[in-house]
Each structure stands twice: as C-alpha cells, then as structure tokens.
C-alpha cells in the first residue's frame, strides 16, 4: 500500500460513475427512438457495479478495492405503446412501440451519479492534501 492507492481507488470510481452518466445520457437522447439496427425500439440501458481489486498486492488484502462497471444491462420491460397510425414504425393495429424510459427516473439517476462523482473527487482532494502535508515534514 502506498500513498497513491487512494488515488487508484477513487479514480476507478470516477471512471465507473462516468460510464453510468454516459448510459444515462444515451437513455435520455433516445427517449423517442423507435427504430434501432437490432430492430424494435431503443431499450433502456443500466450499469452494473462490482468491486475490483486495485493490484495483485491489494488482492491479497481485500480491504482496499475499487469499483468497475462489469456489464451494461438492457431493460427487458415491454415497450410503451402509443397510437399513431401515420408513424412509419406503426404496426398493423396503428400502435407504435416506444422505448420504456422514464425521463424523471433518468434525471434522478443522473443527480445521484453526479453526487457520487463529487464525493470521489473530494476523496482525491483530501488524499492530495495529505500527501502534500507529508512532503512538508523536515522542510
């Protein structure tokens, strides 16, 4: 364990939160997307966090762990149906399948991701101040 371990731990969390924010922005951008290359409407994506050992040495001492996004899950909920017969993606019954994304939920998730990111930058700042203080010894 050295003084930079804390930086590694918090940096892994910053990366994970950034990936989360990217998926949220993808969800918000595609809130009305009715067709995708795979066919069907866009499916809501969400991240899955898992602890991650920082280095081999820390793997033996499992108290210090970072975090990483191990998979991006696709929502399996049924698409929302909207009646619009003039739409090019409308089915025979005149209904269009829309992505099942709640803008409100995405916004709350976005705020949560931002706060987590901020908490981790605070840890990095604190670790930096500590390291600088240690450099002052004997000066």
């Amino acid at each position, binding site marked *: 364990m050295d003084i930079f371990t804390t930086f590694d731990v918090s940096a892994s969390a910053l990366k994970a939160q950034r990936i989360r924010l990217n998926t949220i922005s993808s969800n918000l951008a595609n809130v009305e997307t009715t067709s995708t290359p795979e066919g069907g409407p866009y499916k809501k994506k969400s991240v899955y966090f898992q602890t991650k050992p920082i280095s081999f040495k820390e793997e033996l001492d499992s108290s210090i*762990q970072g975090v990483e996004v191990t998979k991006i899950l696709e929502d399996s909920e049924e698409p929302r149906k909207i009646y619009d017969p003039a739409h090019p993606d409308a089915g025979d019954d005149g209904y269009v399948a829309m992505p099942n994304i709640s803008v409100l939920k995405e916004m709350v998730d976005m705020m949560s991701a931002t706060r987590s990111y901020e908490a981790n930058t605070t840890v990095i700042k604190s670790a930096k101040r*500590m390291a600088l203080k240690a450099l002052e010894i004997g000066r």
Partner: protein
Amino acid sequence: MNPLNPFDSNINLLQKVLDLRAKNQSVIATNIANAETPGYASKVFQFEEQLQNAISAKPGTLATTHGRHISTSPDNVSSVTGVIHEVKDKTGLGDENGVSVDMEMIALSENELLYETAAQLLKKKLTLLTYAIQEGK
C-alpha cells in the same frame, strides 16, 4: 538511549500514526467508491486501541532483547497493524449496500485532520532537532 534515536520514541509513534492514517484513508476511499455497489459491506479500520495498548505496555511483558525473540504482546509500536471490521447492511432495504456516504465523508475529514496533526507534530520535532544541531543558531 539509542544514539540513532536521540530525540524520543514519539517519532516512531508519529511515523506509525501516519502509516495507519494513510491506510485508513484508502479504506474510506474504498467505501465511498463502492457506495453504490450492490451487496457491498462497509469496512471500518480500527487501530487506536492497539496503538494505545502498545504505548502503555504493561510491566511484566517479556522484553525482546534479541532479533530472534518473539514478542508476547503488541507492546511494540511498530508491530501495530490495525484490524478491519465489516459492517453489513441491516436495514433490509434496497441493494444491501452498507455504506452511508455522509458518515464516510465525516470519517474522511477527521482522518485527514488527524493525519495533518501527526505530520505537523513530526515536522516540529524535526525542527527542534535541527535547532539543537545548529547550536541554537
């Protein structure tokens, strides 16, 4: 008195405190990084009690006067390692994550302040030593 350690044994103690506080910082960073990992159990690093026992070593503990002697108790400041406790989520709500970010942020500031205190004390001790070396000039 050890000629290489002319000042006092508190320098060793402060050095150990800095090490342990740095480790505590990493543990707190781990908790904050995993504040949203499902099933993660919060970790608490404790060393104060061990350190207290080491500096107030009881009379009657066996002295280690040879390099191959085995110490009977953590009466030696440098052998204090601290212990890690896991605190599992007991609320039964949500994703069973035991971290509360606000408590961790408080622990983070406290740990930082105590680290800086130890660093400052160490710095002052070394400044005094320098003063003595330079004949009080």
